[in-house]
């Protein structure tokens, strides 16, 4: 997606335009529904890769974060970030006009917006509401990424605050800057960088933003007891339910088509078909490359890495999916399949950070690669006028536009400094405050972690009847 609307020109009178708008509105709603279903995928991947004694806790954080983030975004997150986005052009002209206006900054330097709190007040119509539904689903994806990296040791009460914070403030910032019409999207104007910062469906806005929060949270929590041996070497703590994780991965693949393909916000823009295919191509190549690479590295086709490989391809293609050819989507998938494995190794072995599900590598690292991929592989055939720029099509370094790569690089820097910093500050402050209040911080009690969080935190075991080892 991009800030402001292209697509069908608003012509009230023309019934074909109106009908085209109806078709586009339906596509956006279907897209939103598919993305919302991804929550189930995350829940299963994260739960399957964790240990049975924490399974009820992990699946419940994934369940609750949907509602927590949603409420924060509904009340203030959407107004802050995307309320000034005029999508009427997609929906036939009669609905979807912007309801918001700048809150902080103006012109090409806007940082936050206002208007349409709790979807109330004037101008709220079916078009704006459809945009909200699609966008809240994206936000919830970001919100649920840290629940994986921080699993098995995160206090329920602390987690609840994260969910609200992510939906209300954390996610909206970068979303406002990229899609809401904020300063990053205007860098084509302010810094004459290509078409400005471009992220078609959210490798950056959604995945990297979630991935850096996952890293920040894991650092503040520290590794799970037993993850690193006395020698400092990471130890494998096998997930308790591989088929569950695999099902979750398939559900994510399924939902991702709504994530990427519906980001055209228009079925009247046939590029959505190319986007859908590129998404599948990157997923397939990512999964198989990871399967081969992990076999080369450790001798066997670890199912967990295969799954991560598919997700890596999906995350990486999310930003460039509309701007690259199918063959290039395959290349991006291959690179992501190798990158995700090496990233997992680096994070565990070098950074000594414990991420039970590989969320940092998948979303943070491959998301970053996806953002840069736009600046490298975009072939200029799509995206004329992107970000209301004068661009004739988004074009990457390899196709001659170094400026576009500059814009992408700028976005990456912002993500890993400003956004990571905000996430780290959030968790650190929350932890410090909790400790100073004698509440022991955001990490669960040692005894609870050892015996499993399910009974102490949730009051029920995930599997009260199955006899399990360890």
């Amino acid at each position, binding site marked *: 997606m991009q800030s402001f609307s292209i697509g069908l020109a608003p012509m009230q009178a023309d019934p074909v335009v109106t009908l085209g708008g109806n078709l586009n509105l339906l596509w956006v709603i279907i897209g939103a529904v598919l993305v919302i279903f991804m929550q189930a995928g995350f829940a299963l991947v994260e739960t399957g890769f964790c240990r049975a004694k924490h399974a009820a806790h992990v699946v419940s954080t994934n369940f609750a974060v949907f509602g927590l983030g949603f409420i924060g975004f509904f009340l203030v997150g959407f107004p802050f970030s995307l309320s000034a986005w005029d999508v009427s052009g997609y929906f036939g002209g009669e609905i979807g006009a912007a309801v918001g206006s700048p809150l902080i900054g103006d012109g090409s330097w806007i940082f936050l917006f206002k208007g349409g709190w709790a979807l109330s007040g004037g101008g709220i119509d079916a078009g704006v509401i459809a945009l909200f539904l699609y966008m809240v689903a994206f936000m919830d994806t970001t919100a649920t990424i840290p629940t994986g990296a921080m699993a098995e040791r995160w206090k329920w009460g602390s987690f609840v605050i994260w969910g609200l914070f992510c939906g209300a403030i954390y996610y909206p910032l970068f979303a406002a800057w990229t899609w809401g019409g904020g300063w990053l999207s205007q860098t084509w104007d302010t810094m004459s960088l290509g078409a400005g910062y471009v992220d078609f469906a959210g490798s950056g806005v959604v995945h990297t933003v979630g991935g850096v929060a996952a890293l920040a949270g894991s650092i503040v929590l520290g590794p799970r007891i037993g993850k690193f041996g006395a020698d400092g070497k990471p130890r*494998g703590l*096998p*997930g308790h339910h591989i088929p569950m994780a695999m099902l979750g991965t398939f559900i994510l693949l399924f939902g991702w088509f709504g994530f990427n393909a519906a980001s055209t916000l228009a079925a009247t823009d046939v590029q959505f078909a190319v986007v859908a295919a590129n998404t599948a191509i990157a997923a397939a190549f990512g999964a198989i490359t990871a399967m081969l690479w992990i076999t080369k590295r450790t001798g*066997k086709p670890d199912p967990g890495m295969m799954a*991560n490989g598919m997700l890596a391809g999906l995350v990486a293609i999310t930003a460039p999916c509309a701007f690259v050819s199918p063959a290039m989507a395959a290349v991006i998938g291959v690179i992501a399949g190798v990158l995700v*494995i090496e990233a997992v190794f680096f994070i565990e072995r070098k950074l000594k950070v414990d991420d039970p599900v590989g969320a940092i590598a998948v979303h943070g690292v491959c998301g970053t690669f996806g953002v840069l991929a736009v600046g490298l592989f975009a072939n200029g055939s799509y995206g004329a006028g992107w970000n209301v720029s004068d661009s004739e099509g988004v074009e990457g370094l390899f196709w001659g536009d170094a400026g576009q790569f500059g814009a992408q690089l700028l976005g990456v820097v912002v993500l890993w400094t400003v956004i990571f910093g905000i996430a780290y500050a959030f968790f650190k402050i929350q932890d410090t405050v909790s400790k100073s209040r004698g509440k022991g911080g955001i990490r669960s009690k040692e005894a609870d972690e050892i015996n499993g969080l399910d009974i102490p935190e949730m009051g029920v075991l995930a599997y009260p009847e199955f006899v399990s080892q360890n």
Partner: protein
Amino acid sequence: MKLVTAIVKPFKLDDVKGALKTAGVAGMTVSEVRGFGRQGGHTETYRGSEYQIDFVPKVRIDIIVDDADAERVVDTIVGAAATDKIGDGKVWVTDVDRLVRIRTKEEGADAI
């Protein structure tokens, strides 16, 4: 009476049960256990990190027998459970003071 306890390879359970039936053993109690011994474990990698599998799945069989039958039962198990590969397991015998069949309150040999 004696309590004969055997640790055997899981896939051998059927053979052992069959042999015991033929040997006239009327009942037994089985449970899933994990064994550690010469057979040793092995190292695998999960998501790139190594982990130890120290224990091998085994099946434990407990059989109460009449003193007179103990030896025969042990030999039957040994015969049926052997694959002559490391990890075949053990059989041991302990002494039982008293035995009661819950349903009938019969005691001793009658309770077997």
